[in-house]
C-alpha cells in the first residue's frame, strides 16, 4: 500500500512534467526551438487565476481566465521570436526565450512579492480508496493528463492538424506550397502549448504553492524529459517524464540495498538517470523502435 501511495504521488508530478514537456515538444516541432519561457507561462496562468479568484469569480472561470492569459503570453513570445524562427536560429531563440521567461518571473515577483500564495486557502480535500490518498486537485491532474495526452497523440497522428504540424516540422516552405499555412499552424501550436502549460501551472500551484520562480524546476525537468525521450518522439517524451519523476520518487522513499537516500538527492538522481539514458540511447529512449518502423 505504501508503494502504491508513493506511485500515485509520483504519477501526479509525472503528469505535470509530461504536460509541460508536451508543450515544449509541440513548439519545437513547428519552431525548431525550445521555448524555455514556458516556465513563466505556467506561473503567469496561476497568478492570473489568483487575481480572478480575488475578484470572486467562480473557480472554473478563474482557471479559464488564467489559461487565456498564458495562451496570450505565449503568442507574444511567438511574436518576439518569429525572426529567429524564420532564420532557423534555434539556439538564439532558446536564449531569448529563457531571457523572456526570467524577465516575466521578475515582473511577477515585483507585482506579487516573493511570498508564497496558496490558490486554495484551506487544506486540500482528498479522495481515499483502499488506504490510498490523493488530493482532489491531484486526481483532476491525472484525469487532465490522460485526456490531454490522448488528445495530443490522436491529433498528431490521426487528424489533418497533426499532418499539418508534421509538414511544417519537416519543411515549412514546402508545406506552404501544398496549401498549409505555416504561420497559422505556428500561431495555433503556440497558443495550444501555452494553454496546456498554463493549465499545468494552475493545477500544480493548487496542489502545492505558487511563487514567481516555481516554474523553473519544472521547466528543467520537462526539458530533460524532452531530451531523454527523443526530441521528435512524443511517446518517448511521455515515457521520459515518468521515468525522470518516478525514479527519484521511488529511490528516495524506499531503502535500496539497506541504504536510505535522502530527498535532497532528488535532482541529482534526475540528472543521473537522464545522463545514463542519453549515454545508452543518445537519440532518445524509444529510438530503436523508431528506426525499425
Amino acid at each position, binding site marked *: 500500500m505504501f508503494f502504491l501511495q508513493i506511485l500515485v504521488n509520483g504519477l501526479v508530478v509525472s503528469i505535470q512534467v509530461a504536460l509541460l514537456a508536451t508543450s515544449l515538444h509541440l513548439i519545437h516541432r513547428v519552431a525548431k526551438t525550445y521555448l524555455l519561457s514556458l516556465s513563466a507561462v505556467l506561473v503567469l496562468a496561476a497568478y492570473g487565476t489568483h487575481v480572478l479568484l480575488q475578484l470572486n469569480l467562480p473557480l472554473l472561470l478563474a482557471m479559464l481566465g488564467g489559461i487565456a492569459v498564458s495562451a496570450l503570453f505565449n503568442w507574444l513570445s511567438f511574436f518576439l521570436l518569429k525572426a529567429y524562427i524564420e532564420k532557423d536560429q534555434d539556439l538564439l531563440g532558446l536564449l531569448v526565450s529563457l531571457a523572456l521567461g526570467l524577465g516575466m518571473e521578475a515582473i511577477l515577483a515585483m507585482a506579487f512579492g516573493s511570498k*508564497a500564495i*496558496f490558490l486554495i486557502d484551506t487544506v486540500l480535500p482528498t479522495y481515499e480508496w483502499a488506504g490510498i490518498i490523493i488530493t482532489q486537485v491531484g486526481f483532476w491532474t491525472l484525469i487532465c493528463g490522460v485526456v490531454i495526452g490522448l488528445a495530443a497523440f490522436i491529433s498528431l497522428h490521426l487528424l489533418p492538424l497533426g499532418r499539418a504540424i508534421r509538414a511544417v516540422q519537416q519543411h515549412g516552405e514546402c508545406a506552404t506550397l501544398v496549401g498549409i499555412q505555416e504561420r497559422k499552424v505556428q500561431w495555433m501550436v503556440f497558443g495550444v502549448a501555452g494553454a496546456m502549460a498554463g493549465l499545468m501551472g494552475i493545477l500544480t500551484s493548487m496542489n502545492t*504553492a505558487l511563487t514567481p520562480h516555481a516554474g523553473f524546476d519544472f521547466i528543467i525537468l520537462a526539458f530533460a524529459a524532452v531530451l531523454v525521450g527523443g526530441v521528435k518522439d512524443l511517446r518517448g517524451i511521455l515515457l521520459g517524464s515518468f521515468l525522470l519523476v518516478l525514479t527519484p520518487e521511488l529511490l528516495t*522513499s524506499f531503502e535500496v540495498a539497506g541504504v536510505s537516500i535522502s530527498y535532497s538527492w532528488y535532482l541529482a538522481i534526475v540528472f543521473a538517470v537522464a545522463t545514463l539514458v542519453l549515454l545508452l540511447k543518445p537519440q532518445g529512449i524509444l529510438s530503436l523502435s523508431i528506426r525499425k518502423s
Partner: protein
Amino acid sequence: MNKVFSLAVLSALLMSCAVTESAGLDLSETVKLGVIAPMSGDAAAFGEEQKHVLDYAVAQKNSEGGVQYELVYEDGQCNGPEAVTAFQKLVDVDGVDFILGGLCSSESLAIAPLLESSGVIAMSSLSSSPELANVSPNFISFSYSDSAVGIGIADELKQFETVAIITEQNDYNTALTDVVVAELEGAGVEIVYNEEFEKGETQFRSMIQELKAAGADAILFNPNLGVSAESLVRQMAEVSEWQPHLVGGIVLKMPSIIEIAPEFLEGSVAIDVDTLESPAFMAIYDEINADYGNTTNIGSFYVGATLDAFLVMTELIEEFEGNTEEMKTALRSRTFSVNTGEIFFGDQTFSQSNSTSRFVIQSGRAVKSNQ
C-alpha cells in the same frame, strides 16, 4: 618622479587596507544605522515585522531631540551571499559603522567574519544559531542560543520512545536539529526517521507518507517560517486519521502556521523563549502593533530584543561618540538593564540569562503551559 609617485600610491593603498576603527563621529550630524534583514523571500514576514519595531524605535529616539538617527535597510533575503552583498553596500556605499542584524542566523554567520576587519559593530535581535557562539568580538545577539531551545525541545521529546525528525536545510534549522539529536542520543531515545529537505521545498506528500510509516511517537517539526512550513502543515493535515504529536520551535507557535490547520495542530508543543508581559512593555508592544504594523509572528520577546539592540547601540554610540573599540569594551563589560531583562554578554555572543517556555496549541492559539 615615477618611483616617488608609485611609492606614494602604494603607501596609500597599504594604509587603506589596515584594520579600520571608527575613531569618532560628529554627533551633530544624523547617524546612520544599517539594518540587514530579509525584506523579500520566505522570511520576509520576520523582516517586515522587525522593521515595524525599528521604525517605532527610531521615531521615538529622534523625537527626544539630541542625536538623530537614520535607519538604512538592506535585504539580506535570509541567506549568506545576499547578506554579504548587503553588508558591503552598507559599509562601502552608505558608510555605516553600526549594523542592527543580520536577522537570520545565516545572515549573521555570513557577515560576522567581516566585522572586525571593517571596524563595524553588529547587534542582532533574532539570530540564534549555536554556530554564532564567539564568532566575532564585534558581534552580539540579544536572542537566545538555539542550544537553549534545542535542549528544551529535546526535554519535551525525551518522554517518548521513538522520534522522527524533519528539518529544512538552512543554518538555523540544521543547528537546532543537531542540538536535539545530540541530546536525544544521549538519553537513549530512538530516532526512527531523520530527513532534511531543501529550502523552499513545497512537495512533501511522499515524505509525509514515509514519516507516517515510520510510526514515531513524536515528530520534531523543524522547517523555517515560509512556504515550506505552510506546505508541510497543509499536506500533513490532508492525511486522514493521522494526528501525530508535533514538537517544534518558534514556527509552530506562529499564528500564520496555526491558522492553516488548527484542529490538526491541536496539542502540538512549541518551545520558545518566554513572552514579555509587563504592563509597561505591553503598552509599547500595543503601540507598535497599532501604529506601525503587525508583530505577532516575531512575538513580544523579539520585539523586546529588537528594541534592546537599538537602545544599547544608540546608548553606546552617544557615550563613546561612535568609537567602536570603546563601544566594544563597554559591550563586553557592562550589564544592561533592558526590556528582556538584565543582559550581560562578557566574552559570549549570547546573553547569559534567557530561558525557554513551553507552549501548547489549544483551540487555535499557542498557550503557555509548563506541564
